[in-house]
Each structure stands twice: as structure tokens, then as C-alpha cells.
């Protein structure tokens, strides 16, 4: 078959006097000619190919809330065995929690010193070693048969997500301390932490952890229980820098809450009820879209969705159990059972949670979108950019053209200049830093744009592995910046100037987004890398490229 195909190509006999003096020469020359034709065809259609790739990518993105791309959750690490134990947390422990709550209510408005004194007194009455850092109080339970090499962290911070005191969360923690002492079926040390404020106390504890503890923390739980009763457990799982816990942690807590505690779970505290708008599939689609948008919001900014987020930087798989305030029916009893049973599951682990279960999107409780079903969208968007960058005739000159944007952003970061001040950089760059009139040369402009396309086209799929929503955000920005004509382009660019956008989002529209503070306090890399190293250079160069040739 193959040989017949080959024979057909041989064509006219070779002319011994020409360059192609053998049959092989003739066939090779034909092959080369055909290859060139095909390449030329593709080369001419590149804008179309880019358009098709970007459209499929966007379409894929819009399809994510559709059920066909989802899978049902399962527990991958068999050792976890969620909800397979008889819980021992009982009404006398609830009574203890109530007593602690009474004590806590008296010291709501006191100073940290008074609070930590009360907490340490309560912990030490239960026979647990307890102490404090400058912003947190901790207790270290060493069960008889634990080797002390591995630990589980349970925290309840003083301030809840709501901004109100998390008294019942702390009371649960105190009661757990009393409850867990002396039980001999634990293989892990258990560390209980009450952090000051919403997150800073826990971050302070984690920064001091390794100088006083030997155990390695593998898993963690943060309890947030602001109301007097609760109806659901809202699971918040996004950590700082968009690091997600291993999905087994979420699946375990969800199963334990459902089967041991009898508590329904939600994600991000969004009610899991399909609204009656249009057909049923549309309502489901909208609900899943809402879930994903909330998730995208946390992931794009790299902000932790709740206080457990500070643990992410320390390689601890953790989440926050937020007890949705309500008139009932749940309280200390079901929460205590859920926490106990979850800890028992974590206690079964022989090694860190490690299967590649870190990459997922959750559109609906009990469902998830595996990486293979969402990643292509980012890859397609990224490749649409990359392909546009192949035509780069004079890369060195192009590099000189785009470099100032990166250098100015770096300087701005080093000297702590607000990104809003960088508005003037493109103008300075065009007016004063343009001795060779580089911007007037069409060839240089084209090459520099190609370089940018190549750079951002390669960043996007790489970033998509770590933080898919950020990659999608960056690819949509880049597509807009590089493809829009001058007038709408400038409008979009001025709206999305990172400095302007961030100052709008800080304290307006009910959003409090202070990325700089997040970077200083908790190490959110979106500020130095996301804003200064990626977004600002892109923005400056896009403005420069859009400017009319004078």
C-alpha cells in the first residue's frame, strides 16, 4: 500500500542532465514542494485559525457549568474511610461546650491577654499542654499512642467570616480539647489553635510553629460558628494563592457531615437550590455558573476564601467549616460529631494526601470537574495567542521595544509605587524614550507584538495547571488587549488599568480587596507576580502598541 503510494509520486523520468538526475531527486523535490504549499496555506489562514481556537476555548469555558462535563465525587485515598467510626462526642461534651461558651461570652470585649489567660486556664484544666504566641493561643494534645511525628491542626479564630466573634467555634474547640484528652486510639498529635482576629492570629501561629513543634502537620480544619444554631455547613476551600486542598479533604468532610452529623453541606455558603427561571437545565446551569464564579473570584485574586487559607502556604490540606447561622436544627452536638469523625478519618492516614487530586472545579456539591475536562479551554486560549506570535522577523529590536514596560513595572514594585501611577509610563515611553523612533517602524512593532504573544501564550497554559481561573482571566485580558481596534481597545485598557481597577475594588461595590496588604500579611503572590510582573507589563505594552504611528 505504502509502496504503491510512493510509486505514484515518481512522475516524469529524471533528466540525467538536470539537477534532479535520479528518481529520488524528483520525488523528494515534489514532497518538498507539497510541504511548502500546505505551510503557505496554513500561514495565510493564521488569523482564522486563531479565531477558531479562541472561540472553541471560550465556548468550552461557557460549557463548564453544564452537567455533561462533571463527575461524581469519590474518596480516592481509601485510608480515609469517612464516616465509618462510632463517634463518642456526646451530650456531656455539649454541656462542656456550653460552659465554655458562658465563660467566653463574659470576655468578648477583653484584651488578648485576658482572653489567652482564660483559654489557657480552660485547656490546662483538661490536662493539655497550652501556651501562646503573640497573636494566638494553642493547645497540644499528645494522645498516648501518637509518635509525635505527625499532627492534625484544628483552629477556631476569634473573629468569624461574618466579622462577629466566633464564640461557638472557640467553645467547640475548648470542648474538643477536653473530649480528646486521654483517648488512646489516636495516632496523630492534635494541635488546637485559637487565633486572634480573622486570619492574622493563625498566620502568626504558623510562622512560629516550627520553632516549638516537631510534628509535621498534614491536614487541618478551621471551625467558624458565629450564630447560635446552624442549618448547613458551608465549605470554604480556596487557600492563599489559589492553592486548593486535596479534594479528598473536601469529600471526607462532606461525607462525614452528611452521614455522621446529618448536616447538609454547601460550598461558599451558596444555597444549593435550583431557581425557577426558564427550563430546569437552565436553572441548574445558572446555579453551577454562580458556584464557579464565586470560586473564580477567590482564585483570580489569590485570596483565601476563609481563615484556613493561611495553612495552604505551609502545605497543609485544610478547609473551613462555616456553620451557616440559622434558627436550627444543628448545634454543638452535630458539629462535634462531625469534627470528631473527620479527625478520625485524618487520623487514618499513613502518608500525606498526594494523588493528583489537587486540580478540580466544584460546580455543585457531590460533583466536580476533573482537570482533563476544563484544562483544554485554557490551552486553546493560550495556543490562540502563541500561534499569533510565530511571525517574528526581528526579535532583538522587538525585545528592546517591549522591555521598558517590564523594567518600569519591576522598578515600581521595588520602590512600592502604586500601579495607578504607571498610567503615565506609556506616554513617557512614547514621547521621551524613543530616540530611534522605534514605534514608527511597523516591522519592529509587529515583532514586539509577536514576542508578547509568545510570552503570554506560554504563561497561560502553564498558569492554568496551578490556577485555572487566573489563567482564564489573563487569556481573556490578553485577547482583548491584542486584538481590539484602537478606540474600543483604549476604552478597555483604561477601565482595566490594574491600579484603577484595584482601587475601585478596595472598599467599593461591597468588595474589600487589598492585595498589597494580603501580600504583606499572608504572602499573596498575586500582588508582586500577578500585578507587577504579569499584568502591568502587559498593560503598558498594550497601550504603547495601540498608539497611532505619528
Amino acid at each position, binding site marked *: 500500500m505504502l509502496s504503491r503510494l510512493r510509486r505514484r509520486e515518481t512522475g516524469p523520468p529524471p533528466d540525467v542532465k*538536470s*539537477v*534532479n538526475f535520479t528518481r529520488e*531527486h524528483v520525488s*523528494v*523535490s*515534489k514532497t*518538498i*514542494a507539497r510541504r*511548502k*504549499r500546505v505551510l*503557505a496555506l496554513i*500561514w*495565510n489562514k493564521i488569523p482564522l485559525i486563531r479565531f477558531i481556537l479562541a472561540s472553541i476555548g471560550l465556548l468550552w469555558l461557557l460549557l463548564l457549568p453544564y452537567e455533561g462535563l462533571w463527575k461524581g465525587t469519590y474518596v480516592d485515598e481509601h485510608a480515609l474511610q469517612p464516616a465509618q467510626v462510632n463517634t463518642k462526642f456526646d451530650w*456531656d461534651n455539649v454541656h462542656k461546650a456550653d460552659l465554655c461558651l458562658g465563660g467566653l461570652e463574659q470576655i468578648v470585649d477583653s484584651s488578648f491577654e485576658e482572653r489567652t489567660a482564660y483559654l489557657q*486556664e480552660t485547656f*490546662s*484544666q*483538661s*490536662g493539655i*499542654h497550652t501556651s501562646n504566641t503573640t497573636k494566638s493561643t494553642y493547645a497540644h494534645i*499528645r494522645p*498516648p*499512642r501518637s*509518635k*509525635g*511525628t*505527625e499532627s492534625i491542626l484544628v483552629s477556631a479564630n476569634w473573629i468569624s467570616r461574618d466579622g462577629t466573634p466566633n464564640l461557638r467555634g472557640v467553645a467547640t474547640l475548648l470542648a474538643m480539647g477536653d473530649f480528646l*484528652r*486521654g*483517648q*488512646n486510639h489516636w495516632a496523630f498529635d492534635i494541635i488546637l489553635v485559637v487565633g486572634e482576629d480573622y486570619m492574622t492570629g493563625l498566620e502568626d501561629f504558623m510562622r512560629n510553629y*516550627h*520553632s*516549638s*513543634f*516537631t*510534628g*509535621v502537620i498534614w491536614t487541618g480544619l478551621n471551625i467558624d460558628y458565629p450564630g447560635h444554631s446552624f442549618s448547613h455547613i458551608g465549605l470554604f476551600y480556596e487557600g492563599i494563592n489559589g492553592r486548593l486542598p486535596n479534594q479528598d479533604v473536601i469529600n471526607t468532610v462532606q461525607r462525614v457531615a452528611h452521614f455522621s452529623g446529618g448536616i447538609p453541606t454547601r460550598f461558599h455558603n451558596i444555597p444549593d437550590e435550583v431557581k425557577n427561571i426558564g427550563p430546569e437545565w437552565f436553572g441548574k446551569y445558572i446555579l453551577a455558573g454562580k458556584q464557579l464564579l464565586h470560586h473564580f473570584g477567590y482564585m483570580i485574586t489569590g485570596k483565601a476564601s476563609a481563615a484556613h487559607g493561611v495553612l495552604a502556604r505551609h*502545605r497543609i490540606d485544610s478547609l473551613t467549616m462555616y456553620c451557616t447561622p440559622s434558627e436550627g436544627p444543628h448545634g454543638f452536638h452535630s458539629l462535634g460529631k462531625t469534627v470528631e469523625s473527620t479527625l478520625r478519618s485524618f487520623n487514618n492516614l*499513613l*502518608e*500525606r494526601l*498526594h*494523588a*493528583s487530586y489537587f486540580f478540580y472545579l466544584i460546580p455543585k456539591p457531590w460533583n466536580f470537574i476533573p482537570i482533563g475536562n476544563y484544562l483544554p479551554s485554557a490551552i486553546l486560549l493560550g495556543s490562540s495567542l502563541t500561534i499569533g506570535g510565530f511571525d517574528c522577523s526581528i526579535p532583538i529590536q522587538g525585545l528592546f521595544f517591549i522591555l521598558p514596560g517590564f523594567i518600569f513595572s519591576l522598578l515600581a514594585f521595588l520602590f512600592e509605587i502604586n500601579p495607578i501611577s504607571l498610567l503615565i509610563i506609556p506616554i513617557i515611553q512614547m514621547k521621551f524614550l524613543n530616540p530611534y523612533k522605534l514605534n514608527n517602524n511597523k516591522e519592529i512593532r509587529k515583532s514586539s507584538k509577536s514576542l508578547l504573544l509568545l510570552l503570554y501564550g506560554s504563561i497561560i497554559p502553564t498558569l492554568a495547571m496551578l490556577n485555572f481561573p487566573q489563567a482564564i482571566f489573563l487569556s481573556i485580558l490578553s485577547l482583548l488587549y491584542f486584538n481590539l481596534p484602537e478606540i474600543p481597545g483604549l476604552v478597555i485598557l483604561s477601565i482595566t488599568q490594574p491600579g484603577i481597577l484595584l482601587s475601585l475594588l478596595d472598599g467599593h461595590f461591597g468588595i474589600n480587596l487589598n492585595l498589597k496588604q494580603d501580600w504583606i500579611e499572608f504572602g499573596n503572590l498575586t500582588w508582586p507576580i500577578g500585578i507587577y510582573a504579569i499584568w502591568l507589563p502587559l498593560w503598558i505594552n498594550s497601550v504603547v502598541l495601540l498608539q497611532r504611528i505619528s
Partner: protein
Amino acid sequence: MLLSSLSILIFAPIYHGLAKRTPGKSHDDAFYESLTLHPLPDGRMSVLFEFETIFSSSESLSSIPQSHHSLTPPSLLLPLKANNVSELTISFTSGWDQIRSSSSGLLNYESSGGGGEIRGWLKDGNDIENRWNAVTNALGGLFCAGLGSKDLGDNVRDFGNIYRPKLDVTNTSHFLLSHPESHLCTENLTPFLSLLPSKGSSGISALLSQPGIIFSWESQSEGIEVLMPSGDGQGRWKGWWEGVIDLVPEKGGSRRTSISKMFNKKIPKPFPEVQNSVLRLIVEDEGLQALPSGLAKQEWIDGKIRKVLEWDLQNSTLIGGDIEFWWDGEDRFQYPRTIDPPPITVTRTVIDRVASDGTFQIILSNQDNYERKAIYSEIWPWWVKGWMSEVELLVGNEQKPELLDNLHYNPSTPPKISTTTLHFYLTIPANSKLILKIPFTKLTLKYTEHRPDAERGIEISSGVLTLLDTLPESQLAESEIFNSRRTGRKRIYTNRLLLDVPTPDFSMPYNVIIMSSTVMAVFFGLMQGALTRKWGWVELPSVAEKVVKADDGKKSD
């Protein structure tokens, strides 16, 4: 005739026992046992079983090597004798909480730090390493635990200064093999009991032969120490089992307890061959009462004079009975808010943790008013590489390099499996915290060197602080009641550490294989193509020229 020989067989132990009690017979074995109870400040109680057997050398009896012992099992002694071992200690320990016990280690001073450990002195001669391997493997089999080395390089040879010989035998070499990953489990109890003459059926060993109770204890430690006889002298082997019981009920209450409450058994009938079987209670505070009361004594134990109550368990009035312990007027035990720390504590943590590096931070705190001299020793696997030029010694925030008197550093030689050992000769100033910081890098392990459950990380052996200025406990000076130097505890151990090691994703080997094979194939294909291709000059047909021209034309537009 048959009947009489049968009767001899049946009564043999009794005849033998009677014979033994008469003094003057040098070739007889003797057996001692004791059970020590020591209440700890936070409502717990240390329990230590000790079994000691004296045996004599039987070599002089015949020219053919043979072993005649009535109380010591040959399975223990034969491998030691065959391999010319002089002393040997095996210990398994699960750890110790220095913070909440006012004591810097277990009651038994010979227990090692966390994990399993086998150490001993071998008489010099041919094949010493092979003999050591034979001993470790034989005893590992005896204890149902992997005590042997995975590689010759795992053996540590320079800890002779730390574990000095107890026998006065010259020309011996020290070996140590540490297994920080091992832990005490049910399988270790049965072989331990089978080594004892009483086999767990009589005497205090009957209290020990209850895995359901024993293994719920805290800070357990098991071990044996064998001193082989030299010439026709006497040998001695000692076995111990230690643990900590929580006396406070799970829901709170008083610490009141008794032998039958702790062990779920009454005081057992004594082992007929035993020389001495005692129960000892170390009384720390005056409120502690016991009924029936024992014989009170003063004894110097671990840096302090302590009151000890003793009961002779061979006493027929106690057998089948019970002894109760309670604290006067205690209705509900109140946990103390603070617990006095022991005079010297050692903690070791890893700070500045990143995937590839870290820093060992060892805090040595001395509560006493006088400075102490000590050696701090570490054993590292080959993949832990210390930055020895960056070792820091601090008191508070102040650098104190002068407190390091000497340093013995024996580096490993990777990639061969070997260990790094370090001995810091230190002065620990009075009333201070000495901080030793050793930065290190984790080298990458070959994928075959990862343990099962690779993502768990790998344990590092306990660090050992050897105190150089201790005084014997027995020399009781009249005026003193407290002197932390006067103790038999020469070594204080840190906890074990679990280090995360860079681990390949073993959970998806198939993907990894596909990925790496593809990269290899593409690379090979490129190279193969370039090397085998024939290079030449070809003229393209006119159609192609047209396209190329058209393309060029577009570009120049």
C-alpha cells in the same frame, strides 16, 4: 524405672530450685524481677517492669561448645556467643514527653530515643562487620522486627564514647544501628515474654502478658541488655518493659487506683525460681497512700532523694490480693497549671522548612545554677547534608561559638549508603537556653530508595545529649537532698523527626513512563533522522516556485 525417671523430670525444676538457694554453687542461674510505679505530676503513672537473670559461663565444662542454662534461653545467648559479642543492647521506644513529666526521660536509663536501636561491643577479630550483621539479623528474627541493616553503611561505629562498655574487656569495637522508623507493636511482646523464664504465666510477667492493656499505654519502651560472661565469670541479661498509664478517667475524676485496676489482675503467684520479686512505688508527694502499706525507704533516684515504698511479692499474704493507691482527700484531680521542667531538656525541631532545605534547631535548656558539660550527637542518613560552616551556637540572640569545645564530624559518602555522625562537645551555661542551629540540604533519593508510603517522609534518629559530669547515684552525701548531677541518667534523647523528602509522583507511574518515553522517542527520532539523512541538492518544480514567489510578494507588500 520409667516412673522414677518421669518423676525426676517432673520435679527437676523443684530440685534445681532447692539446690540453687544454697549458697556456694557458682554455676547456678539467678532471676530477679521488679515492678516500679512512679506517679507523674499530671495524673499519669510510669510503670516499669524489670527482669534480670544472672547466668554463668559453661565453657569450662567441656571441650565441645555447649550451653547449659536453666533460666536463660539459648536462642538469645547462642548468636551472641557464636559471634563473639561482649555486650549488646536492643531497645524499642515510642517517645517521651519532656514537657509534662518533670523528668527528662524514661525511668529506665538504658532506653534509647524514639524507634528501634541495637548497639553493642564486639570482640575484635576477623570479619567483625559480618559478625555484627549476623547478630542483628538473628536478634531481629527473635524480636520479630527488622533490626538488621539494609546496607553496611547504615552501621555507626563512632558512638563508643556515648555508650561506654560496662564490662572490663579490652579489644572490643562498638556498633550501633538505629531504626527510627520502627515502633513497638504487639508482635514484640510475645518474643519478649518467651525470653523470660517465667514466660508471662507467673510472677510480675503475668501482669505484662496482656497485650490489650499494655499497648494502650503511653511512651512505651521495651528492651534487653546482655552482658556476656568473659572467661568463666558470670553474665547477666536484663529485660525491661516500660509505659505510662493515665490514672485520670476519661471523663475526669480521682486518680485512685490499684494493681487490679491497672492490670485487670490480682497480684499473681510468684515464679518459683525467682530470687527476689518486688513492687516499688516512688512517692513524690506526701498525699499518696497505699494499702496494704509497703516498707518505706529513702533512695537517691535521678538527681533527688525520694521516698520509695517496697512490697515483697513473694509474701504469701499479698498473693491473690491487691494493693490500692490513692491521694488523700482527692475527689477530682485538678491538673496543675504549670509543671516544673526537668533540670535539662533537649528539643529538636526543623525551622525554615522548604522543599529542599531546612535547619535543625536544637534547644538545650539548663535550669540549674551550674554549667554542664555534654556531648550532643546526631546520626543522619546520607541524604541529609549539613552546612557545617554555617552551624550556629546561640544563647538568646547572641552568638557563643566559645561554648563549642570540640566537634567530631564524620561525613557520609554519597551516593553510597552511609551515615553522617556528629558529636558536639558543648558547655551548657547555667540557667540558660543554648540553641544549636545546623542548616542542611536534602539530597535527592533514587526512586528505589524511597520507602513504601513514600509521601510520608522519612524519620531521623533521635539526637543524644550525653552528660559528661554526672555522679553515681549510690554515693549518698548526707547533707544533699537534691543534685541534678547525681543521676544514673547519662543520656537525654530528643524526639524523632519526620522529614519530607522530595518524592516523585509514584501514584501515576504510567503517566510518568508515557511522558518520559515520549520525550526520549522524540529526541531519538530527531537525532536518528539527522544522522541517517542523505544531504543533497534538489531543484523544486515550478509550481512550488510560484507559491514561494506569491508568498514573498505578500510579505513585501
